[in-house]
C-alpha cells in the first residue's frame, strides 16, 4: 500500500476526482493548504504599501492505494493537473504500513477497495 500526497491547483480537483472515481478509486481526502515552490509569490498592495505573498493557496489531495493501482492513480493526477506552468504542484508517494476500516475492523488492501469494485 502507498499513500499519494499530491499538491494541485484548485481547478484540477474536480476532473481528477471524477476520473479516479470512474477508475474505482473514489477514496481521498482534500485539504486547503498554502505553500511555496517554484511558482513566484505575488504582491499585495494595500493603499500604496506593498508586501510580497510567498504562500499561494493549493489543494492537498491525499489517498492511499494498493500497489497495483499506484501508477494509474499517479498517471491520472499527473495528466489532469498539468498545465505546463510553474505552480502545477508536486506528487509524493509514501509507504503505508497498515490500513484499517473503522466500521468493520477489516485490515489490509481490502480496506482500499470501493464498494462497487
Amino acid at each position: 500500500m502507498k499513500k499519494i500526497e499530491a499538491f494541485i491547483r484548485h481547478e484540477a480537483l474536480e476532473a481528477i476526482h471524477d476520473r479516479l472515481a470512474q477508475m474505482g478509486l473514489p477514496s481521498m481526502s482534500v485539504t486547503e493548504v498554502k505553500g511555496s515552490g517554484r511558482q513566484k509569490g505575488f504582491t499585495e498592495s494595500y493603499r500604496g504599501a506593498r508586501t510580497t505573498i510567498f504562500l499561494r493557496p493549493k489543494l492537498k489531495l491525499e489517498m492511499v492505494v494498493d500497489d497495483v493501482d499506484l501508477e494509474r492513480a499517479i498517471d491520472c493526477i499527473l495528466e489532469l493537473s498539468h498545465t505546463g506552468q510553474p505552480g502545477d504542484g508536486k506528487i509524493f508517494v509514501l509507504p503505508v504500513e497498515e490500513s484499517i476500516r473503522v466500521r468493520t475492523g477489516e485490515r489490509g488492501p481490502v480496506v482500499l477497495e470501493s464498494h462497487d469494485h
Partner: protein
Amino acid sequence: MEAVAIDTVWVVVAGCLVLFMQAGFAMLEVGFSRMKNAGAVMAKVLINMCLAFAVFWAIGFAIAFGDGGDFAGATGWFIELGNPDGVPSLAYSAADENTKWFFQATFAAVTLAIVWGSMLDRVRFGAYAPFAIVFVGLIYPVVVHWQWGGGWLYQHGYQDFAGSGVVHLCGATAAFAGAMIVGPRIGKFRDGKPVPIPGHSMPLAILGVLILWVGWQGFNAGSWLAAVGQDLGRVIVVTNLSGIFGVIGATIVARLLLGTLDIGMMGNGAIAGLGAIAGPCGFVAPWGGAVIGLVAGSVMVLVVLGVDRIRVDDPIGAVAGHGGGGSVGVLAPGFLTTPSAAELLGGREGLVYGGGLTQLGWQLVALGAIASFTFVTAWATFALIDRTMGLRAPEDAELQGLDIVEHGMYGYPERFIEVPGATPDDALPELAGAPAGAATAPRLEGES
C-alpha cells in the same frame, strides 16, 4: 410655491432611494460572486455608478430628455442648468430642474448596473468606461427618449410608468448580449450541463434584494416627479404587492420544478416582481399588481433555466429577473390598465376592462423595439470592446481572482493570505510579546 418645494423635496428623497439601490446591487452581486472577486465587485459597482452619472451629465440627459424629434433629443448638453425654459419633456413636474436631472441620473446608474450583473467574475476593469460611454451616452438615452422624452412610443400611447421596458428590459437585454459575448466563467458548463458555482454569501445577496426593494419605493413612486396631487399611495401599494407575489410565485415554481426552496430564486422573485411592476405601477389596480408579481416571479424561474440551457452564464440572474420581469411589465398594461389611469396618464385601458387589443399591440411593439434596438447596439459595442481592448479578463486573472490580479488586494484578505495579527494569538500578552521576526523585520514596505 409650496407645491414646488414639496415636489422638489419628494424628487430628491425618491432620487436618494434610487441611489441607495446601488448598495443593493453591490450586496446582491457580491453575494452571488466568489470570495476571490468580492473586492472587485465593489470597485465595479462604485466606478460604474460614477461613470453613469458623468456620462449622463455630459450627453445622456440631452439625448434622453432634450428636444429634437421622435427618436432622440439634442438639447441640454451638460444639462444647461439655469435655462429658464427648463427641459420641456419634464415640464409636467413643478419640481426644481436640477432634482429632475438627479432623479433621472440615478435611473441611468441603475440601468448600467443591471447590465454588468450578468458578467460577474470575468470582465476586465478597463472595459467599464468605454461601455458606459456608449450605453449611458447613447443606447439607454435613446430608449428613454422614445418614451419619457416624448418620442414615438409615447406618442402611440405606450404605457411605461417607471421603466419595466425603458430600464429593466433595456438593461437586461444588454446584459444578455454581454454575457453571450464574454462567455461563461471557467467551469460553468461541463459536457453541456450547467455546473453550480455558488455565490459566497446568501446573507449578502438577500440583504441586497431587500435594499433594492426599499429603493424601488422611490423608483416607482418617485416617477411621478411630483408629490402634490399625485397618487403616490396607490403606486406604493401596487409596487409592494407585486414584489411580495413575485417572491411567492418564484418560491412555488422553484419548489415544483427544482424540488428545493431555492434562496437565490426567492430573491430573484422579488427582483422580477418589482421590475415587472415598474412599468404598470401607475396604471393598474392593486389586484393587478398582485397578478403581475405572481406571473413575473414564475416566469423568472423559467428564464433562469432557459438561459442555463442555451449555455449563457448569468451568475446573478439579471437576464431572468430584470428581463423576464421587465417583459411581463411591458405587456401587463395591455391587459390591466384601468380606465381612470389611462385617462390620466395616456394610452388606452387594458383588455380586461374592455379596452381592446390596440394597447396590447403597442406594448408588444415597445417590447420588440426596446429589446431589438438594445440587443443590436449593445452586442456591437461589446463585440467592438472585445475585439480591440478585450472584454474578458485573462484566464490567469479569472482563476486567481480579479481582486488580487486587477486590484492588487483582496476583498477578504484573511481568506487568502497571511495577515499580520489577523487571528488572536493564544499566548497571554504578559507572557509573550510579538515573535522576534515580527518585531525586527516588518514585512510591509513603503508605509510611513
